[in-house]
């Protein structure tokens, strides 16, 4: 019961604060505006709360994370479930699970202290100019963070595929690769897609890595070596420190929060529904 109350409380409290924000600032200006200049609110001018730049940064960094994490995560899962010996799997799988529990503040520190200078050096070596708060290193480390989660979930759904399907394929003379690509993976696809969607929503909501490794500057640019900011960074920036609850700046954090919540909620919902259907399908056929 309490969980429903909690969900409800989250929603209502944040919506309430967000409503206060939208009563002061225009809704469409927030959704489609490209200038984020809230500090003007303290001057005589009105502050500008265009969130497009923030969401762009969030999606862009998440995209880098996804490009890193998906292939590596899925292929590791294939290795774990198809090629690794039973004993190796029994030890490797818990390690993956433990890795999935590494706090994100650790990855954030790692990104800021070790990876960012490294990318700047490599970029300099290639004759490119990289910022120390570049989107690339934040995205890369974020991708590495979600690899254990993705490969663990994919491994689960691949192992759920009945072995006899694969044996059937092998007995028809398919190579192991073909049996995996044409039989196992398509059957496990819903689970894999579910895992990937969860990975995406994790990346969108990730805070500490981007707070520590990305910058505060809103930047609409496609160059991953430039600095960029994300929604979560802005929320933290706005809300850490003392604040009053009635100015637009503080309230804007709640507006950003609710948008992020809705976004990840939809993604999670799809993921949960897909993997649920998948599990049901194989539970029945396993009987």
């Amino acid at each position, binding site marked *: 019961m309490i*969980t429903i109350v909690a969900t409800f409380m989250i929603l209502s409290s944040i919506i309430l604060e967000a409503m206060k924000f939208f009563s002061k600032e225009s809704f469409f200006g927030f959704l489609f505006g490209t200038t984020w200049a809230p500090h003007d609110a303290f001057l005589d001018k009105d502050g500008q709360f265009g969130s497009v730049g923030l969401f762009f940064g969030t999606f862009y960094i998440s995209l880098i994370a996804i490009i890193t994490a998906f292939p590596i995560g899925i292929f590791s899962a294939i290795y774990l479930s198809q090629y690794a010996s039973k004993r190796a799997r029994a030890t490797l799988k818990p390690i993956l*699970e433990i890795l999935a*529990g590494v706090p994100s503040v650790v990855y954030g520190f790692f990104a800021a202290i070790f990876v960012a200078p490294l990318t700047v050096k490599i970029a300099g070596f290639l004759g490119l100019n990289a910022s120390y708060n570049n989107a690339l290193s934040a995205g890369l480390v974020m991708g590495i963070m979600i690899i254990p989660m993705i*490969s663990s979930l994919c491994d689960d759904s691949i192992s759920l595929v009945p072995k006899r399907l694969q044996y059937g394929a092998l007995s028809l003379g398919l*190579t192991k690769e073909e049996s995996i690509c044409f039989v196992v993976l398509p059957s496990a696809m819903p689970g894999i897609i579910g895992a990937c969607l969860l990975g995406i929503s994790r990346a969108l909501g990730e805070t500490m890595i981007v*707070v520590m490794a990305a910058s505060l500057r809103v930047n609409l640019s496609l160059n991953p070596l430039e600095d960029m900011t994300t929604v979560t960074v802005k929320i933290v920036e706005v809300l850490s420190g003392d604040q009053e609850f009635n100015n637009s700046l503080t309230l804007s954090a709640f507006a950003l929060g609710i948008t992020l*919540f809705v976004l990840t909620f939809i993604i999670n919902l799809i993921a*949960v529904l897909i993997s649920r259907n998948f599990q049901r399908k194989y539970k029945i056929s396993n009987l």
Partner: protein
Amino acid sequence: MIGLISKETLKTRRLKSKIFKLVSMSSFVFCVIFLAFFLFSLISSGIGEFKRYYINVDILITEKLIQNPYSLPNVEKKYISRAWLRNLPNLIKQEDINIGETKSFLATANADVDGFLKHNFTKLNGEEIKEVMKLQKQGIIVSKFNKDFFTRGDSKIPENAGFLSAIVGSVLVMIVAMGLAFPIGVASAIYLEKFAKDNKFTKFIEININNLNAVPSIIFGLLGLSVFINFFGMPRSSALVGGIVLAIMSLPVIIVSTRSALRIVPESISQAGYSLGLTKFQVIFGHVLPNAFGGILTGLIMALAGAIGETAPLMIVGMIAFVPEIATSLLNPSTVMPAQIYIWSSSPERIYIEKTSAAILVLLFTVFALNLVAIMLRNRINKKV
């Protein structure tokens, strides 16, 4: 599909198969290599913090020294940490040392000496360096296990900053979080599993719980800020608010794991109970719960391991303040391990990199240990069932 395959010769198909295996193996190897690099860089930059340099000094206690410890005439004075000197009058009082006595102390060396002896990184000039080297040769400057790191709170003076207040804060927050989340989580799991009817409403709740599991953690921080601090007026930065927020966050984990623990308890056990005339309540509390206890405990430890590393929601409720004292009550401002890591990592001085890495090692050790216990517990249960 078959047509697609048959166009190729067996040779290329075997080659493709090999390449596929190679790709999947190499991506796994990449993970392992990265992990090694990750741990290696953290350990190599953090291990130094567990050792630090101390100076053996003989100090003649005088009235003047007690009034102004910085007036210490010893040559070694400029290498001694200012924080240690500031605390000298307290030490003298504590140990009941008479005026006029000469007493030898093990003083903390300052960050410059420490940084130079460890990494050749220093603000000392050439002459001072020579002197420090000489003192080290004479055995006056010695390195020892850095117990200050575990016995002190945060400080603006780098060589004096320790991790204890963060550890204490984490413990307090976890007590609040688990104290709230555990009974509520287990109770709602029992309700959902044993009492609730299987209808649209419970399905809706189920999806909700799964969803809550993946809501960005920062959203829970927003909740804490607007509900508990803004609406109920609880003190900012306190362990109480942090604990409540983390409790709400870890509820789904506990509920999901408790439910699966309840589910694997064999139906025959409760049937036997019913046949002896027990009520539903007696069956659940006397028979089902004790049998599911291991699984419930696993979930609790998992939730704990997840919550202990959580940072973002705690930042929002103000737990990233500078907290030098060790919190003594739930309402005091306190800090937690990941928050302390964040604070140190954003400090410009180089010595803090070492401190941050050391703090991370402590945090990782805690998280890994908790996870390991949970996984071992789970394996044992799986074997039993």
